[in-house]
């Protein structure tokens, strides 16, 4: 008989050592594929079960947001600068890409607190909850690509063939969002302030990123901020790929993408080292 043998000790994960820790982290994710799928099915599809419009709700929120930006720009209140394509197309793309980042952040940030009951009752790798939350946002994003294609068609904007790399181009944003979310998920299980603070900051951060306006917009302050903001390269790069078939600053994008990957791994490690404390704070 090959019995499983496990040991529980204080500070187990801190004492585990670096290599062994990473091996366990990877194992936790790899071993919970079926669990992620079952949880994903539960939460993604059942979100839309008791509703007449069902999955159409995925489109409604971004469309309303985009209409408001288009309205502000048409009314002359917002001066997005010269974007080279019809403004609704521009803002829809930017908004959807930014929405992926915010969506991944806010869902992963709630991954532990939302499943508190389960965590207290059953032993399972909690990474599964994070992956499930990410998958949900990604699924909504993929569905939103349909909306984007439709709008591109309506405004007869032909995307570059390089748009096939678009999923790859948004991946770094996904990593930043998930990384931030994982850290917040642990801390906010202890004290709720942190999530509220980060969410408030991210609302402001959107205006520091060329989502609704062009990076070439006038104003020295904006230029400086955008220049220093890694998210600006990630959002802008992914959008440029579709609209213009290239990136304005590929090196800036690559540096930001590298930072995003490093940040994600770092956050995941922090999550792994500290999340066991969450069960007793729920």
């Amino acid at each position: 008989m090959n019995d499983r043998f496990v040991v529980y000790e204080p500070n187990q994960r801190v004492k585990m050592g670096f290599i062994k820790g990473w091996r366990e982290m990877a194992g936790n994710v790899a071993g919970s594929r079926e669990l992620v799928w079952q949880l994903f099915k539960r939460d993604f599809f059942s979100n839309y079960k008791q509703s007449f419009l069902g999955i159409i709700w995925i489109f409604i929120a971004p469309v309303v947001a985009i209409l408001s930006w288009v309205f502000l720009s048409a009314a002359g209140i917002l001066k997005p600068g010269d974007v080279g394509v019809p403004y609704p197309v521009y803002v829809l793309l930017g908004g959807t890409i930014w929405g992926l980042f915010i969506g991944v952040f806010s869902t992963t940030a709630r991954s532990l607190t939302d499943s508190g009951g389960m965590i207290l009752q059953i032993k399972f790798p909690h990474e599964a909850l994070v992956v499930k939350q990410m998958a949900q946002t990604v699924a909504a994003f993929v569905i939103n690509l349909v909306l984007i294609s439709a709008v591109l068609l309506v405004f007869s904007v032909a995307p570059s063939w390089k748009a096939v790399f678009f999923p790859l181009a948004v991946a770094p944003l996904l990593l930043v969002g998930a990384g931030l979310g994982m850290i917040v998920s642990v801390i906010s299980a202890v004290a709720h302030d942190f999530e509220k603070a980060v969410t408030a900051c991210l609302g402001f951060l959107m205006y520091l990123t060329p989502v609704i306006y062009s990076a070439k917009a006038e104003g020295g302050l904006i230029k400086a901020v955008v220049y220093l903001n890694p998210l600006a390269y990630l959002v802008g790069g992914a959008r440029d790929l579709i609209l213009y078939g290239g990136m304005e600053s590929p090196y800036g994008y690559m540096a930001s993408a590298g930072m995003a990957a490093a940040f994600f791994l770092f956050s995941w490690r922090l999550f792994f080292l500290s999340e066991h404390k969450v069960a007793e704070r729920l």
Partner: protein
Amino acid sequence: MGDTAIKVEGVSKKFCRRLRQAMYYGSVDVGRGMMGLQADTGSLRPGEFWAVRDVSFELKKGETMGLIGPNGSGKSTLLRLLNGIYQPDAGRIEITGRVGALIAVGAGFHPLMTGRENIYLNCTILGMTRGEIDKRFDDIVGFADIGEFLDSPVKTYSSGMYVRLAFSCAIHVDPDILLIDEVLAVGDLAFSVKCVEKIKEFKGQGKTIILVTHDPGPVKRVCGRALLLEKGKVSLDGPSGAVVDSYMRSQTKPDGPGESQARRWGTGDIKITSATFLDEDGRPANGAVQGSPVTAVLEFEAKKKVDGPVFGMVFRDHKGEVMSIVNTRQSGPPLSVEGDGSIRLSVDAFNLTPGMYAVTVAVYDSDRLYPFDELRDICSFEVKDAGLDNHGLVYLPSRWELS
């Protein structure tokens, strides 16, 4: 490893009483963890207390142990430590074998999903692979007994069906070590009987079981060994009979039987509508002289035909200790009742020592696993001194012959 299933060495777990302090300590601990520093776990900070303190025991494969103790004694915390949900603050736990926990069933159930979908979901959360679920699916459905509701959203289930389905998933994980927390109290009573049977089956298969409950009855029946926890510490570890008795003694309340409030529970299939003591002339009485005959009449109504019910009466002294239990099983063949009726109890000589006794009347199922109706401490009964110069708990009618 060998034949040891669970080895617990000096395990402690601390918690914090106040929310604000808990937030502060939690932030510090999480911060330290993130920086790769070991949290200071061995000592208490202000406001903290030990929920589990220096607990050690070893459980061999196939052993069944009851974990008993009053509320707040650390039973559930210890169970979560064993299940790996909490990490110990001190000590070490070694577990050999697959652990299944019936801690609180139905985790992850989604009300809008069908029974079928929820089985797959819940069993996956419990650690089963898809192949295992496929293989045991029919057993799970059969045990839960949900019939044609399998493909309806569980939202439409009665609470009993919901619990049955959840419990059925949990019990089909097929673990080597089973941790059970108070689940015998879930669902309707008929189902809890089914669960007891299933647990006995596990026991027969040589699985290791830890049963946590504050109801010591099942511990005595199912477990060979018991651990008594008090204030987080092991205060007694030994054969279940002795540990349970000691626990019962420490739990009885000192208030007299006269003031005790009546408590009633049961399935209601049979209801006891009145209980009356009669004196020798057939008049209602609330006491008798020691050594004299006593008669009591229980009136009942049975909603449906019930085979083999056991009527009984319990006498407890002022400390709550059971002095005597008389029931219909002790005297005569199994009964069968339906509709209204009454049953008469005759005690030839009431030999308890003079004093006040609290009376509990009950009617149980044939295996005495659950009550149809139980009325706890419904009245008091006084035994009057007959000048027998009797000390001790009971008077034994006796003769001495000198030769």
